[in-house]
């Protein structure tokens, strides 16, 4: 158990180091500190997604209650918690994916860059263009690799050079080198890990501000997982990323902030703790968080 904790702390340390390198280019006057927590405090965060007192019911059965979260811009925010605590539900609220499920009712607000997305006159389709999503199981369209990437841009009336967009998106998703000579083959001919990167490229091609990922590595082997994690770390300079994961090491490795959710006896999910990742894993403020990350339940 102790070993696991140490490993996680280690991973967090690495993550912070990465960021320090990035940051030191942008803001040279900030002294590089070996104390990650202090450094995170220093940063002035822009809130990208403001979730305010959100509750959701599936045909009358409450799934999450009163969740409030400020998700920072251009960072990776992880949602962790035991199965059934409402992580996916919360994530799918951010791009109004839950609208597609009949009988869902919702209370509270979500603002993305100040704009409330659950107002009456907001088009959920427009929200989803701005908030991309990567799913648990890789789900490329049964179309060519090229068409998979071009699809979103095409339906959104993209006027620029499609070939370039496809290439840039695949490059950003670290897939270009592997598929550049077979763009016309079906996306389904790729391996699971490649398919998931194709799905990331597909999301990127629409140029969203936010990318949501629901356990994007759970169907992948460790090597493919690592590639996706590397990718997530690269993408956070451009996108605000929210990732649901069951894998605490993964949360520790890739995320800047972590939200821990938990469902009580009545199976209604609530937010327990939301802190910088490193803090949450090394010095949780809630005893239930501590129990969960040390594997005592869940």
């Amino acid at each position, binding site marked *: 158990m102790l070993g696991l904790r140490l490993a996680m702390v280690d991973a967090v340390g690495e993550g912070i180091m990465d960021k320090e390198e990035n940051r030191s280019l942008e803001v040279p006057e900030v002294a590089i500190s070996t104390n990650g927590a202090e450094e995170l405090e220093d940063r002035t965060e822009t809130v990208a997604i403001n979730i305010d007192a959100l509750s959701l019911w599936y045909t009358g059965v409450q799934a999450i209650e009163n969740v409030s979260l400020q998700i920072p811009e251009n960072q990776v925010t992880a949602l962790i918690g035991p199965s059934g605590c409402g992580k996916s539900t919360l994530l799918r609220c951010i791009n109004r994916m839950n609208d*597609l499920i009949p009988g869902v009712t919702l209370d509270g607000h979500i603002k993305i860059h100040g704009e409330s997305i659950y107002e009456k006159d907001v088009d959920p389709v427009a929200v989803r263009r701005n908030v*991309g999503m990567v799913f648990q199981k890789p789900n490329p369209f*049964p179309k060519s690799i090229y068409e998979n990437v071009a699809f*979103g841009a095409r339906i959104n009336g993209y006027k620029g050079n499609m070939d370039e967009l496809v290439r840039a998106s695949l490059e950003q998703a670290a897939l270009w080198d592997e598929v550049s000579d077979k763009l016309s083959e079906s996306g389904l001919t790729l391996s699971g890990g490649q398919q998931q990167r194709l799905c990331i490229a597909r999301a990127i091609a629409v140029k969203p501000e936010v990318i949501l990922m629901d356990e994007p590595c759970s169907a992948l082997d460790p090597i493919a997982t690592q590639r996706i994690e590397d990718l997530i770390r690269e993408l956070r300079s451009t996108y605000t990323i929210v990732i649901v994961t069951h894998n605490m090491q993964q949360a520790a490795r890739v995320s800047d902030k972590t939200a821990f959710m938990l469902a009580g006896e009545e199976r209604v999910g609530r937010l327990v703790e939301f802190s910088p990742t490193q803090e949450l894993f090394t010095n949780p403020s809630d005893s239930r968080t501590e129990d969960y990350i040390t594997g005592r339940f869940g």
Partner: protein
Amino acid sequence: MSFETTRVTARYRQNLRSNLGGRLIGAVLFLCAFVTVVTTVGIVVILFIEGLSFFAEVSPIEFFTGTKWTPLFTSKGFGVLPLISGTVLIGLGAACVALPLGTLTAIYLSEYATPRIRSVMKPLVEVLSGIPTVVYGYFALTFISPFIKEYLYPEAGPYMAISAIVVVGIMIVPIVASISDDALRAVPRELREAAYGVGASKLEVNTRVVFPAALSGVIASYILAISRAIGETMAVTVAAGARPNLTANPFEAVQTMTAYIVSVSLGDTPHGTIEFKTIFAVGLTLFFMTLVMNIISSRITKRFREVYD
């Protein structure tokens, strides 16, 4: 020790028995499949033998290029084109009615209808295919044809292709709607969500992702429906009449290949005569027409379908 042995033996015997049962079931199932195959082969062989003996007497060139089909008259004409044109007219016409209607019904049922509406509507649509075809025929003859004669085309006689087209079209809507609906609903939710996730509207999801992914099933429903339309005899005979007629005018009476075959089989034409053998020649032609259609459509399906699993 001895207890152990008996137990093992008993178990062994039981295995043998159930194995025997399994083999018996296998044999019965094989027999069923075999009967089907033998029947099909038998039909094809008889079609070929009788058809070829027809072509020994009438040249294929006359048969396939002649425009007069009067084998039962004293001045015999063995040109099958009028029957083919009648068949194609009814088949294509019915397809024009049923494919759009059936496809849209399927899309509505699978993508737009609430579960409650669906659970009522789908059986109702399927009931259409349970109505005896002769009822469709009389509906056409006593309702649609007089209506058309009265308001649209007064020159028409009592029989006309168009009213057969309409009823056959309606008759095959359930085939298209029901099978296409199944194919559309089989498209995984993940694919729809992927499309919604990049900002596709419902219409875009349906037309660009769901429909293409279901295409092989949809086309299968089309083939089945058109084959049914081509094979349909009763309603067509009642509504469109029994006059071989080389025309594209849907307001005239026509005769289809199947209608001709029935009229001769049920008539008093003596077996073995050249007049009687015409039905095998016509049947053989019909057989090749449907065969070619099936081959073409399976090519189309292979080329355009999007395999998603």
